[in-house]
């Protein structure tokens, strides 16, 4: 009786999981299949088997002067890479400043960062756009990178990690050995923080790679667009006249690199989600 009941539960659990996994993978399967088919084949209806136009579609996308996708990939890589490096370094630096030193405003600084932890950036977008226009930074990649020096949620993650993994005696020992304060941070603290830095670098890179709202408002010229902005232009007025094979290929270029990297690092990433407990 007990056995029967629990095997029923096992079957139910597997059925639900298979349906959910199917829902998650089905759309990407169609995406990749359709990226290999020509516009004419796509008009004929759906097919579960890949077509033979993968290279043709890829070439059509790469050679379209209206959508400089190679430049887009480059811009996205620059912004995401710089953000990942800056976010992790400066968040660790800020967290270390508050964790390792005693100063009058220490508690106030920590409280302030915790208060703005989940504040959406969109609420200050108006002033932000006006500010960077006045500073002459409109239509450039800099305003997409510089603000990431102040990332409250990554700070919180780093601070929690230091509390569990960075003994203060170690800092004291480094001081006795004559290490300078910046030297201690760069040569002793940063290596200890490596696991936390890796997790946050990945999440920041992905978040920045996918970011659409602010970049779409800041960037106006074609050769500075990042990938999400280019994807959005596909949804423009001439959608009906567009080569569908090309559309699927562009979406593939935007998301498949992330999927591939994820498959290699999946175990690490899935564990990283709960390490910090905070995600925007």
């Amino acid at each position: 009786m007990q056995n029967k009941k629990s095997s029923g539960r096992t079957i139910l659990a597997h059925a639900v999981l298979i349906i959910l996994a199917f829902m998650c993978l089905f759309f990407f399967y169609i995406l990749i299949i359709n990226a290999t088919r020509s516009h004419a084949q796509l008009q004929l209806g759906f097919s579960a088997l890949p077509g033979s136009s993968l290279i043709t579609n890829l070439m059509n996308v790469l050679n379209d002067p209206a959508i400089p996708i190679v430049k887009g990939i480059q811009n996205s890589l620059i912004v995401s890479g710089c953000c990942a490096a800056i976010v992790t370094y400066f968040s660790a630096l800020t967290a270390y400043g508050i964790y390792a030193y005693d100063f009058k405003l220490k508690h106030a600084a920590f409280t302030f960062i915790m208060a703005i932890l989940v504040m959406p950036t969109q609420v200050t977008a108006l002033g932000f756009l006006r500010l960077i226009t006045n500073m002459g930074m409109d239509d450039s990649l800099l305003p997409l990178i510089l603000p990431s020096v102040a990332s409250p949620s990554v700070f919180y993650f780093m601070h929690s990690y230091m509390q569990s993994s960075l003994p203060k005696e170690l800092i004291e020992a480094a001081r006795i050995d004559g290490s300078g304060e910046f030297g201690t941070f760069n040569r002793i603290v940063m290596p200890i923080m490596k696991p936390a830095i890796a997790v946050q670098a990945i999440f920041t890179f992905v978040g920045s790679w996918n970011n659409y709202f602010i970049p779409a408002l800041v960037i106006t010229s074609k050769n500075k667009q990042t990938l999400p902005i280019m994807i959005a232009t596909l949804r423009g007025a001439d959608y009906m006249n567009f080569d569908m094979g090309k559309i699927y290929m562009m979406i593939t270029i935007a998301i498949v690199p992330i999927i591939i990297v994820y498959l290699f690092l999946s175990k690490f990433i899935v564990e990283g989600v709960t390490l910090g407990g905070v995600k925007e």
Partner: protein
Amino acid sequence: MPNEKKIKSVSYAKWGYIFILPFFLTYAIFSVIPLVDTIRNSFYEYYYSGLKAIGPNWVGFANYAEMLAADLPKYAWNTFVMWILGFIPQIVVALVLASWFTDARLKIHGKQFFKVVIYLPNLIMASAFAMLFFAMFSNSGPVNNILLSMGVIGEAIRFMESTFGARTLVALMNFLMWFGNTTIMLMAAIMGINPSIFEAAELDGCTHIQKFFKITLPQIKPLLTYTLITSLIGGLQMFDVPQILTGGQGAPDRTTMTLIMYLNNHLQAKNYGMAGALSVFLFIISGALCWIVFKMNTDPDPDGSKFAAKRARNAAKKGGNA
């Protein structure tokens, strides 16, 4: 001896300030100044009519009044409906999956595979995902093709031309992108529950359903609240998916227009006064939600045990006095 004393009294406080300076400087420049400027703009009539700037003229709270009288409540409602349509299945599915994944008596094959797959959509570029859905659910897209060829439907479903269809598609995407993330967060919370509570319940003959409702749910209540609030903040920022899916139109008849899409329209049109007023509304709502998150993160008594102890002590004292 005096030398040693000197070393001990070296103050490192200035290094604390130096290390946190870049953060606060950046935050002041790129967030505080823009916030002040945004609030200031909300009190002015300031927009572009063609290339000609109208204003800035001081109008007090006129922008706020106009916004409340016109479209703001409608867009707030749209945002809320699409959020809740996605959030309810998200939290229910995540709870069920998390309790299955953490149930030692339930042998799930390929647990790691399922965890990896359900988390995958969370990392996908939302704008590309929306573009993909737009192509798939279009009138002659693959989904209609498959349903037609299977004979499930007689003619193509016009998903994006009905309010319900368009909102459901947005909610479905939000659900797919977030249920895996929530599952993994809840799993960590459930694994943090003392296993002896479950063992005792099993000895007492508790069923799975009882264990779930009487132990698991109450034990992870703080995290559930936290998930609810952070998801609300995420919902408030809903933009990429409906923007791309409807080409910024919020079709049909602006029923999928969210608050941030509305803000985006005003920003694109350089309609500074109205964009400012809308931003201040959003700032107040997010501020309230931030405060709740802040309280939960810095709560010295997260499970209420200290409060309970204090109450018991007070009750004992009172009893003693009487």
